């Protein structure tokens, strides 16, 4: 076993690409592009502003947006909050109903809860056992007073891809602004905001081999998506997100986007190969299945149910592999995955589920090491488990 665990938790965060680090470092020191991008009275300030705009162009190119439609934020969580809280508050005079799904990231669910405390009504549409939100179910939830809908593009726990095209069509027809959380899909799936009729879309850099602490919100210009700012002071980002721009973070996100533009297809082929290797390896002893639709997911996330074992014991017993139980973002809470629960799974099934997410720098040899260690521990835990027959069938639970 290598001294470093095999890192299979890229859905939680990715290592920063060395080219991104170089670009960021060039913005930090005395001889770099360190000046305040808002200081347009001198050349260093204008150089920093140029770096910020180059990054904005890169994100725009990756997503098919107009650069003027992108607002820098501290990450996807802030972008989601700005879209949901800001969007609902702006349109509160027209209606106070918001629609989302039961399997969203906590950033969305908690922002919606905050809206409820302000007197908004929120409808949470269920997903099917395949982890997909039906566009028809979402359409049925829309009301005349609905001002906003929010659905994620790719689920962070299961990797399942939502039918955003159809959902956007439904919302567009009803005149409801749609926000899409694209934290898990940026640079992993083609996104063309020139064609896709969504009003707002949230992005993060750190799922894309960029730095933590930077993200962006897409706000469509025509028809114009409107939000009330969450913060005030300084007028940066057209008054929507004030505060001195973090040039190095933005430059890092821009570089991550440039690399993603070049590598999107190559990355997906690489991840498909690794995911298949993982799946073929782990399914060998039997009793292993996908959580969510295996045919409609990004290749970088495998959410697997391993019958007869407890995920927490697998994590402890296989320290040479770094992986997640449910979502890393909810693991600070002892509650079981709300996503798997919404898909109809019980507590025991959820406890026997794990998320494996290889990345751009993961090698086939590392996958083999991880599979060997996981299989050995799965076999040991099954031997210990009263829920597992030696014949390979899980006992009724």
């Amino acid at each position, binding site marked *: 076993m290598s001294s470093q665990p095999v890192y299979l938790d890229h859905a939680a965060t990715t290592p920063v690409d060395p080219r991104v680090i170089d670009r960021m470092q060039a913005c930090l020191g005395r001889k770099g592009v360190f000046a305040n991008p808002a200081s347009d009275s001198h050349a260093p300030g204008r150089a920093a502003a140029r770096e910020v705009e180059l990054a904005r162009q890169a994100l725009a190119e990756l997503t098919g947006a107009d650069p003027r439609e992108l607002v820098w934020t501290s990450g996807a969580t802030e972008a989601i909050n700005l879209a949901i809280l800001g969007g609902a508050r702006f349109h509160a005079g027209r209606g106070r109903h918001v629609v989302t799904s039961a399997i969203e990231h906590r950033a969305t669910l908690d922002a919606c809860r905050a809206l409820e405390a302000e007197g908004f009504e929120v409808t949470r549409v269920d997903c099917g056992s395949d982890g997909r939100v039906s566009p028809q179910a979402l359409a049925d939830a829309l009301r005349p007073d609905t001002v906003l809908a929010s659905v994620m593009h790719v689920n962070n726990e299961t990797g399942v891809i939502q039918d955003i095209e159809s959902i956007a069509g439904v919302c567009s027809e009803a005149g409801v602004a749609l926000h899409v959380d694209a934290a898990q899909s940026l640079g992993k799936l083609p996104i063309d905001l020139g064609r896709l009729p969504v009003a707002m879309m949230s992005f993060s850099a750190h799922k894309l081999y960029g730095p933590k602490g930077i993200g962006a919100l897409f706000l469509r210009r025509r028809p114009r998506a409107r939000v009330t700012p969450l913060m005030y002071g300084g007028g940066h980002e057209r008054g929507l997100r004030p505060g001195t721009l973090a040039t190095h973070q933005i430059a890092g996100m821009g570089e991550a986007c440039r690399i993603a533009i070049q590598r999107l297809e190559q990355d997906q082929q690489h991840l498909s190969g690794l995911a298949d290797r993982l799946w073929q390896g782990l399914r060998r002893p039997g009793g292993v299945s996908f959580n969510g639709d295996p045919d409609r997911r990004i290749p970088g996330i495998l959410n697997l149910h391993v019958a007869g*074992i407890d995920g927490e014991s697998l994590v402890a017993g296989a320290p040479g592999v770094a992986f997640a*139980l449910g979502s890393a973002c909810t*693991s600070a809470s002892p509650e079981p995955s709300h996503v798997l629960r919404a898909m109809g799974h019980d507590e*025991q099934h959820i406890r026997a589920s794990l998320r494996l997410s290889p990345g751009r720098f993961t090698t086939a040899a590392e996958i083999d090491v991880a599979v060997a260690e996981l299989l050995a521990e799965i076999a040991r835990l099954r031997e*210990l*488990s*009263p829920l597992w027959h030696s014949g390979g069938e899980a006992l009724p639970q």
Partner: protein
Amino acid sequence: MSEYYPESHPVWRLFRETPGAGELAEAPDVLVSEARSPADGAVLRLSVQVMDGVLVQVRFKAFGCPACIACGAWLVSRLEGQGTEALAGVSVVALAEGLQLPATRRHCAVLAEEVAHDLHARLAR
């Protein structure tokens, strides 16, 4: 939330080594008890073979977190070779202290106490 146990922690040692893991074959002098945690679905099963009032063999199986598995192994280490009264002496407090269980894992000790007391009650009949 996963607990992290350093290698010196008693839970870690018993989780890794699992002394007494297994199941006793069905026999007239073998009793089995199983408890399930409603909170998280953990399951602990204890099998004992009793001869002349002595627990001559004890084995456990467990589905759950490392603390749950360690509780099973702890039961075996404390009970095998003892008189059946030792079953009544199993307590959540003793397990929690012996295994230095975090407060969030006391329900695993509850499972261990349940199976031990159930076996004791059935043997006393």
